[in-house]
């Protein structure tokens, strides 16, 4: 593993420097991030681990432009999107940023309850004007790859927690975003499916050059990362992972 400083600039998908986030102010202020540095290259899946309350979700929310950091800098593909020294966000339409460049997989897989599985996944391209049939067929591919194809016509309220999580993963991948942020994506899954999810994420990284950050406690998947960031009291430390190959797993998931 090369040191972050030596990475060629055009290969860097995410670069955080000195990122801080303090919730609230005055006597009730909670400093969740105290200066985080992190670099993720295109095509890389990295792990983010740390004890509960250490600031993992906060980091992902800042990175995903869901909450505003207090200070520091965020660059995506060389473009500075946040700079605390220059007044905060550097782009006006954060929602467009999220839609076009970031895929979210969060701890609680919030789906739209009044849509079925396929339409939950196909929603964004459909709203963006992609013909429904085309968006749905792309959605079906992803759903099949995530092993929930047999549930595609079902209302999401009738799915198990693990099935919902996989539908949420399919939804986050539909636009092939260059950055995917996943918060405990495998928590509700058994080890076969957890590894299948990691394989799909690895596939997205390799095939589309996505940069993927996976927050996890999950002992089943921690050995699969080649590179990890450990976060403690709002600060990160980089370390090398085992990088155990996923192909070794015999699960028969079809990858679209």
């Amino acid at each position, binding site marked *: 593993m090369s040191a972050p400083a030596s990475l060629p600039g055009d290969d860097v998908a995410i670069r955080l420097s000195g990122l801080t986030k303090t919730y609230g102010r005055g006597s009730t202020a909670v400093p969740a991030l105290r200066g985080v540095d992190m670099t993720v290259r295109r095509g890389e899946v990295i792990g983010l681990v740390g004890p509960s309350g250490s600031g993992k979700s906060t980091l992902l929310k800042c990175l995903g432009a*869901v909450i505003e950091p207090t200070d520091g800098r965020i660059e995506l593909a060389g473009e500075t999107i946040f700079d605390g020294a220059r007044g905060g966000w550097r782009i006006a339409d954060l929602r*467009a940023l999220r839609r*076009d460049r970031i895929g979210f997989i969060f701890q*609680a897989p*919030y789906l739209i309850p009044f849509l079925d599985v396929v339409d939950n996944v196909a929603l964004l391209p459909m*709203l963006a004007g992609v013909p429904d049939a085309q968006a749905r067929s792309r959605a079906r591919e992803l759903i099949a790859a995530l092993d929930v194809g047999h549930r595609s016509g079902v209302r999401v309220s009738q799915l198990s927690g693990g099935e919902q999580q996989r539908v949420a993963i399919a939804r986050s991948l539909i636009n092939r975003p260059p950055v995917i942020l996943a918060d405990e994506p495998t928590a509700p899954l058994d080890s076969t499916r957890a590894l299948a999810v990691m394989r799909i994420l690895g596939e997205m990284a390799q095939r589309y050059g996505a940069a993927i950050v996976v927050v996890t406690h999950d002992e089943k998947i921690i050995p699969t990362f080649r590179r990890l960031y450990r976060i403690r009291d709002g600060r990160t430390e980089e370390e090398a992972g085992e990088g155990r190959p996923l192909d070794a797993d015999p699960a028969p998931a079809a990858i679209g």
Partner: protein
Amino acid sequence: MINLAGRDIAQHFGRFLFTGVGLGLLIGATLTMAGVYRGMVADGRAVIAASGADLWVVQKDTLGPWAEPSSLRDDLQRTLAVLPGVAEVANAAYLTMQVPVHGREVRVMLAGVEPGGLGEPSQLVAGRPLLRSHYEAVADRATGLRVGDTVRIRRHDYAVVGLTQRATSSSGDPMLFIPLKDAQEVQFLKDNDSLLAERARTQANPALNRPGVPGLLDAVLAGQSASRSVNTVLVRVAPGHTVAEVQAAIGRWKHLTAWSREDMEEILVARLIATSARQIGMFLAILAVVSAAIVAFIIYTMTLNKQREIAVLKLIGARDRSIAALVLQQALALGLIGFAVGEGAATLWAPFFPKTVLLTAGDAARGLLATLGVCTLASSLAIRAALRVDPAEAIGG
């Protein structure tokens, strides 16, 4: 493109329909209230038009014959008949009273008309018009009378020979037409007891009971019991003359006022039903405000209940207009269902009202516009709330 509003409604169709029906009943009540007012005006106009008269001649400075008492001598019509421009005249007397119908008392407006003359109902739905000058009646259906019934009015029985429809006074009492002579008797004759008492008083008056003047007392008594009064003289203007010119000519008489059809309508709307109309208007306004508030509240709550979905939509980057469309389309759908139910309900229950409820297309159109307007306004508030939803709400810790 996928329609989020439609999909959400489809998922909760029962609940949505239920809300729409509740709203619809409220809208129906509002539409009915407007119909009650229209019905009042229309009934009054219908009676004015049905009389066939162009002018109503009444006692000087009164708003007769319905709004204020008016009394004219019945031989006045002969003088009016020869006036230039007058084609036809007829005496008429009106009075409101109770009559027994099939064992219950019904409040009617008794109209004394000259058989075959002005003031007679122009259209019958059953039977025939009055032919004899005594003891026949044409009744409005709303009285409950049928052709062949007899109805007792004061001292006499009347045979019902014909029926009218929607002939009611401005206060909604059905009309009962009887020959003028009978009506005069009913209206201006005293009942037996007061007649006897008055006769006794007159007889006891020494000035009228002088020896040597034998016919005097009888003449006075006869004068007391005959009636020569009517409420109004109806006039039809001859072709080639204007109503205004005949009206002016009659107005020159010191003791008479002549009202045209327009004047009568104006008296009806501005004086007779003005207070009831304002009463209904107030109620209508309150009902409309309450309905609007409830529509707004429902739409707002509906949107707040979708906060989590909206947060997810914002998180994954759905545009504001997709979210606004979701809220607005649901609001309009709810409004349309409510309006359809309201219009249907009003149409269904209108015939069961004791007075005419006139549902006009214009009022329906205004009601629809108002409903959609309120829905749009309410959803614009709801949309503002929806767009303030924090996308971070969609994410767990």
